[in-house]
């Protein structure tokens, strides 16, 4: 705690300490007067407290609002105790005092603990740490992820089948589309959307120009249309079964 010894004109020296706040100052006064914290003589403490604030002002030390609020609390308790009739119907002075004492006690616990913290800080600040060593580490060349054993054969099968289709398109089984040709469906969707930019309607068969009319192509295109119907971008029209399907753009909303 910082201390200042100040010579006053009256030629006596008073010691002004920097108190952390009103609780801190109250403690100091209670201890100085050897009072029991549970049995504070409010009148006495209030006078000393206010005198102290006056001295601080004389010495041009800043008296913050917290100190003043506490002063008024103390004065209130003191006046109610002196004139119990004056504050009838309001808070009992004993209750106000108890509340103050409880807060003082709580603050005291933490203040006392700071002594331990201060000692520990002094001790443990004598420890040195070191920065970590500098290594040039190549990134790990291993895969930490693990995969299912089924993945490799599944991928190989799909490549293998794709190649087989290329050689003999008619042999492509329908079921493959679901599993593997999401990308194809997506590109078909794009094709349909592109077409609908320039035309409000077109025939389903127009999607298969240039020989792209294998069963796989047809099925993929059909799935693309189903997707677009689901998201309400198009409507489909078929006048009779097995007849030509007409794709129509749907208005927004």
């Amino acid at each position, binding site marked *: 705690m910082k201390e200042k010894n100040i010579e006053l004109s009256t030629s006596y020296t008073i010691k002004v300490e920097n108190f952390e*706040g009103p609780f801190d100052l109250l403690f100091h006064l209670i201890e100085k007067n050897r009072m029991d914290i549970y049995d504070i003589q409010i009148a006495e403490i209030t006078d000393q407290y206010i005198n102290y604030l006056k001295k601080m002002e004389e010495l041009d030390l800043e008296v913050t609002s917290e100190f003043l609020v506490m002063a008024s609390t103390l004065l209130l308790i003191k006046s109610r105790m002196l004139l119990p009739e004056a504050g009838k119907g309001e808070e009992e002075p004993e209750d106000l005092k108890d509340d103050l004492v409880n807060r003082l006690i709580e603050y005291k616990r*933490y203040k006392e*603990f*700071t002594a331990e913290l*201060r000692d520990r800080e002094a001790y443990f*600040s*004598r*420890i040195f740490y070191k920065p*970590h060593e500098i290594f040039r580490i190549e990134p790990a060349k291993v895969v930490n992820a693990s995969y299912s054993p089924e993945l490799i054969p599944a991928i190989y099968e799909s490549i293998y089948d794709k190649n087989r289709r290329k050689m003999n398109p008619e042999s492509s089984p329908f079921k493959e589309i679901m599993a593997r040709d999401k990308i194809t469906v997506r590109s078909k969707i794009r094709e349909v959307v592109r077409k609908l930019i320039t035309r409000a309607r077109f025939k389903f068969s127009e999607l298969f120009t240039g020989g792209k009319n294998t069963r796989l192509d047809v099925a993929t295109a059909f799935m693309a249309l189903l997707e677009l119907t689901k998201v309400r971008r198009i409507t489909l029209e078929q006048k009779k079964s097995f007849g030509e399907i007409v794709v129509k753009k749907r208005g927004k909303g």
Partner: protein
Amino acid sequence: MIKLEIQKIEAIIEAMLFASGDPVTLETLSEVTEVDRKTLSLLISRMMDRYTDENRGIQVREIDGSYQLCSKPEYFDYVKKLFEPRQKQGLSQAALEVLAIAAYNQPVTRVEIEKIRGVSSDSAINSLVERNLLIEAGRMDAPGKPILYETSEEFLRAFGYKSLADLPQSEDFLKAE
């Protein structure tokens, strides 16, 4: 585990803690050495004992479930000669009070701290956050969404606590409210 293996594991731990400089979690040590955590923490406490030997200048500290190698405080006066005078200013009384309150009431808001201290604690809190002793831990679900503060790992390190459970306990320090 045969004896040679134990020795090797101790050596690995020492090498890792040294190279890291920073705290290393028990989990990481366990992963690398492939020794279960319980056995490992026993091994490390045995090592910690040996570091207390007179002729050792370093020690292993446990902080929040991690281990860190550091110099022993008793050789500070010698070691510091290696470095430029380090300006390690101690904390102010206000800062220590805020820390004491935060340690026992975390997570805690500025208003709660100020209520206990009886004074505005803005600048003390700010300086503690700046020194990484307090950290912001989200906001309270209350009007104004006030910031919640917690003590940091650095707090444990700076004050020599292994964990928050290491703080002196007493019924006096029940969480306010």
